[in-house]
């Protein structure tokens, strides 16, 4: 019974989660309003939305770094209190420890979890190899390229084998070729044990190529989830090739029809600051 129930329990469930920030002048700014989202175990969900709409905010709720002012977040059925211990989080900003080498950066998650240093380092070496950076173990982050740093970050998160993977525009600052290579690497690693993934991007093509579901957020403030599409493209996928398929194009056109308006709204609103709720 227990197993049957947990199989149906979503890995992440946001129920009408609303997040407001207190601004410097003490007014409240509602970033995300009544977000309702569910990610099944083993499902790869991509969130797309105009910049500033609250994508990072949504991930921070799922990570337990932010608490919604109303609504709830549940992780595998349990209400989230404090940090989400089941989640690994690849941040949008550079977040490697600059004073640790690539190897030490990857190993640290195991070391602080109580693993022996030797074992942690040995496993970190294997993880660095599987993101293609075996030869860079001794380098410090500033000696790595942006793409290499992201790969170290990925290994740093995955080595702890989290049940949920949160990724915030992980390939955002990379060039087009590197993004595609990283995308394929991610799909390859993900296909080995199919964690639940919540993947934020501003790139609709990337979202469709990678995900099982694409979720669209409206422009803020008070951003909402306004669309949810299932991506029926077969796996395993090669994201170089998949962009050439007709189904890909049809879905892209359909989603873009909705997203386009929000992107325009997002630009218009970021030009004139709007506050909601005094």
């Amino acid at each position, binding site marked *: 019974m227990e197993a049957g129930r947990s199989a149906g329990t979503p890995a992440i469930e946001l129920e009408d989660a609303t997040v407001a920030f207190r601004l410097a002048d003490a007014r409240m700014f509602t970033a995300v309003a009544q977000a309702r989202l569910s990610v099944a175990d083993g499902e790869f969900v991509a969130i797309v939305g105009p910049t500033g709409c609250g994508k990072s905010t949504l991930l921070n709720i799922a990570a337990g770094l932010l608490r919604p002012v109303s609504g709830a977040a549940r992780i595998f059925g349990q209400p989230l209190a404090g*940090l989400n211990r089941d989640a690994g989080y690849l941040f949008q900003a550079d977040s490697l420890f600059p004073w640790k080498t690539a190897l030490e950066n990857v190993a640290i998650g195991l070391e602080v979890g109580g693993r022996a240093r030797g074992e942690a380092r040995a496993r970190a070496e294997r993880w660095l190899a599987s993101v293609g950076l075996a030869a860079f173990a001794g380098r410090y982050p*500033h000696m790595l390229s942006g793409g290499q740093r992201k790969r170290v970050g990925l290994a740093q998160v995955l080595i702890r084998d989290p049940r949920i993977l949160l990724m915030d525009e992980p390939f955002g600052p990379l060039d087009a070729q590197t993004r595609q290579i990283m995308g394929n690497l991610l799909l390859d690693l993900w296909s080995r044990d199919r964690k639940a993934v919540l993947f934020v991007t501003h790139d609709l093509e990337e979202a469709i190529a990678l995900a099982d579901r694409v979720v669209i957020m409206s422009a803020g403030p008070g951003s909402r989830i306004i669309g949810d599409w299932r991506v029926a493209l077969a796996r395993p996928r090669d994201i170089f090739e998949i962009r050439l398929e007709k189904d890909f194009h049809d879905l892209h056109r359909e989603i873009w029809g909705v997203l386009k308006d929000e992107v325009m709204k997002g630009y218009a609103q970021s030009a004139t600051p709007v506050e909601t709720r005094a």
Partner: protein
Amino acid sequence: MSRGRLLLYQALVAVAIVALWHVLTTVPVSGRILLPPFFFSNPFDVGKQIVDWFVTGAIWRHLAITLWESILAFVIGSLGGVLFGFWFARQPRVAAVFDPYVKMANALPRVVLAPIFTLWLGLGIWSKVALGVTLVFFIVFFNVYQGVKEVSGAVLANARMLGMNERQLMRHVYWPSALSWMFSSLHTSVGFAVVGAVVGEYLGSAAGLGYLIQQAEGVFDVAGVFAGMFVLSAFVILIDLLVTVAERRLLKWRPEAERHAA
């Protein structure tokens, strides 16, 4: 410019200055010596004095004392700075309460403290160490405070998501960040440790480079004053070289351009 060429040019500057000094203090120009040796001495007398000091070995005791005072001032000042910097940064309330007093203490010119330290601690090394400590402490304190405060939010959030508890955050995040700020101000704090020692000696002591210079001034021995200054400069440059080596090891994770941020 290649390294060899750079060294050559640097040596040429020294040669030129010494030559000029020599000419102006010994060769009469239209019947008059422009820089009277009584006030400006001359390179030979100064050189002879320096050689004398080293040949007789008289200088070593003074050098050792000044070095020892500087080391003690640096170590004690740094320890205090790290401890208080860390404590204040992690306890914003403590920091807020003490803030005006920290600023007041730091704004005080330390020289005025020298007589008081001599009164309290006597003419021995400790009054000089104390003066150095008051200089080193604040540099290290402010840098460590900043280092703890300025840890990037993303790095901190990442550390917490990777499962670090408070103690591990201290060890793996705050501590390295604080130390890196402290190390990047190493040249300044070591320099001030020496300044504290020498100024302290100058204002009242029985040994050390500052004492040597002060004694020479007392009997209008200009050659002695200049010789003392040259030995002191060489001493400071040597220590600075050591700091550069230490810094290169300690901050090897930082891009070259950022190492002298503070």
